[in-house]
């Protein structure tokens, strides 16, 4: 028994080591840092709650944190809504060469993330593809300004950037559904739409949940996309944290904001999982 568990741990140890070094350690450092105070170029290394009181007293941080969550929520909804039909199509309509379709979906993701964000900048810009296209067609007389440098452009860019991460888990969960369940539903009197609502959708929920989390969690903290296409109105909590560790030179406050946004994201995720769980129960 003992030697067996020992063997288990030794098998795990490289992973365990990597987890401790790569995840737990930085977290400990970050949390410790968040209780210190910046003193010009140095830290005052005594326990203090100042950063947290700052966080709660200056409304800007909470406001931007919630704006980030709202934007990521929108990104998540948009991504899942776009990804679901795509995954559904591949799982149920494509008969041959599904693998080719799946690889084709990932093709845009072979280029760098930055390039894709820049591509959207070119698409949405004042002299961008959309504006010049519409101008040359005579649909517009002057370029649209609301396309770029606002929260919407951030949402569009992020939704595109994360699409593959949503399509794949949804596809897997749809592919796993036994086709005879859909026939059973038809047989028991439900039409195509109700079969989708009562069988396909609830059975693919694990994939939808996975997709949502895969998109939501990383996009809340994203700072590249808002920095490049968001403009002043499109900044997110990631940009604030980045500036705290950079220009603003207040690492402890940056750490505290990071910790708070982590806690908030965790709470949101719990709320989300609890909600979908209830939805499943209601359907059943």
């Amino acid at each position, binding site marked *: 028994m003992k030697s067996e568990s020992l063997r288990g741990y030794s098998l795990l140890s490289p992973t365990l080591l990597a987890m401790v070094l790569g995840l737990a350690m930085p977290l400990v450092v970050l949390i410790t840092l968040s209780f210190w105070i910046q003193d010009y170029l140095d830290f005052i290394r005594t326990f203090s709650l100042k950063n947290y009181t700052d966080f709660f007293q200056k409304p800007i941080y909470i406001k931007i944190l919630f704006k980030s969550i709202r934007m990521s929520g929108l990104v998540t909804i948009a991504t899942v809504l776009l990804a679901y039909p795509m995954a559904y199509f591949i799982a149920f309509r494509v008969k041959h060469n599904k693998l080719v379709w799946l690889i084709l979906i990932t093709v845009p993701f072979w280029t760098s993330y930055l390039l894709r964000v820049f591509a959207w900048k070119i698409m949405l810009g004042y002299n961008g593809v959309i504006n010049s296209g519409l101008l040359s067609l005579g649909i517009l007389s002057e370029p649209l300004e609301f396309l770029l440098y606002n929260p919407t452009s951030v949402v569009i860019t992020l939704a595109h950037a994360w699409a593959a991460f949503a399509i794949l888990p949804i596809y897997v969960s749809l592919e796993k559904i036994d086709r005879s369940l859909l*026939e059973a*539903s*038809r*047989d*028991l*009197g*439900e039409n195509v739409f109700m079969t989708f609502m009562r069988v396909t959708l609830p059975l693919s929920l694990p994939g939808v949940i996975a997709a949502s989390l895969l998109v939501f969690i990383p996009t809340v903290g994203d700072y590249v996309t808002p920095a490049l296409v968001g403009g002043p109105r499109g900044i997110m909590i990631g940009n604030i944290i980045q500036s705290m560790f950079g220009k603003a030179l207040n690492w402890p406050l940056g750490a505290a904001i990071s910790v708070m946004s982590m806690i908030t994201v965790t709470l949101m995720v719990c709320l989300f999982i609890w909600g979908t769980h209830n939805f499943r129960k209601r359907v*059943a």
Partner: protein
Amino acid sequence: MSQDPIISFQNVSKSFGEVKAVDGANFEINRGEFFALLGPSGCGKTTLLRMVAGFETPNSGEVYIDGQPMSATPPNHRPVNMVFQNYAIFPHMDVRGNIAFGMRKSGLSKSELDKRIDETLELIKLQGYGKRGADELSGGQRQRVALARALIKHPKVLLLDEPLGALDKKLREQMQIELRQLQQQVGITFLFVTHDQEEALTLSDRIAVMTEGHVKEIASPAQLYENPKSRFVADFIGSMNFFQGEVIDLNNKQLSISTDVLGEISVPASDSDYASKSPVWVAIRPEKLQPVFSAPDDSSNVIEGEIGPSAYLGDRSHFYVHIEKREEPVLVALQNLERSSDLHRNPFQKVWLKWSNASLVVLPRN
């Protein structure tokens, strides 16, 4: 049974690419009948059943349910329900949820529906299992839930695709009895697919024997067993010994046939008439050959042979008998009426097989 068709196939054919899965099915199933589609794997049974349910569309011909042509009716509007081969129990619902699935539009109040579900659970002997999840059920229980889910809708026909195939032998035999009782209890027409001839014989009022997309013969179990109309059916249902023969002549309603091994025989001519010289099979079931182990006095209707390999099956023994001039041994089945542990016959022992001409079946040979 009244001749009142609930399902009628009219020249129904269905191909998948090159494969003719069902080829010109043309028969009727009567109201209240327990009807089996029997045939080897791949002969088109499931395809035929799925055309009744509406999951496949015939390439030609028409399926009628209770007099109505069905080609324009989607599965959800057909008055039939199906028990799927793998049962297709909804994994995200408990037993009650599964049974209630098809009752959304029934117009019953919550309490009426609960009562109906309770009654159905009782019908299939799963009282107290309502809250079980789909993954907490055994194979037999899943099958019961699949039955209940379909029966609660009071379909005009219940379609069952090899419903007992996944169960072990004991459970299968028990379920056969229960299925038969259930059918009599609810009075619904059962259309049942199986490749197991014993199961079809046990359960059905009538059986359609299929092969390669064709319906070969439709008859009652006893008719199919005792009076098959083709070599395929005779061979597929039970075991049969075939002897080559040729009609000598037909008079006084007696058919005289010369055979390779049985000599010249005379059997009552059935309704099918054979011309003189037409080639036939003369067939006899293994249990209708009576072995004796010393030379009989009367040498008519007897063939002599030597015992070959044998198999002890508990209630009976099978053994092969080698006959001179015949390559294929003859199969004989003998009831083990006396209690003895030494029922294997000695190989090479001489044996005489007696038969009665009334047991012989004459089939066309071509």
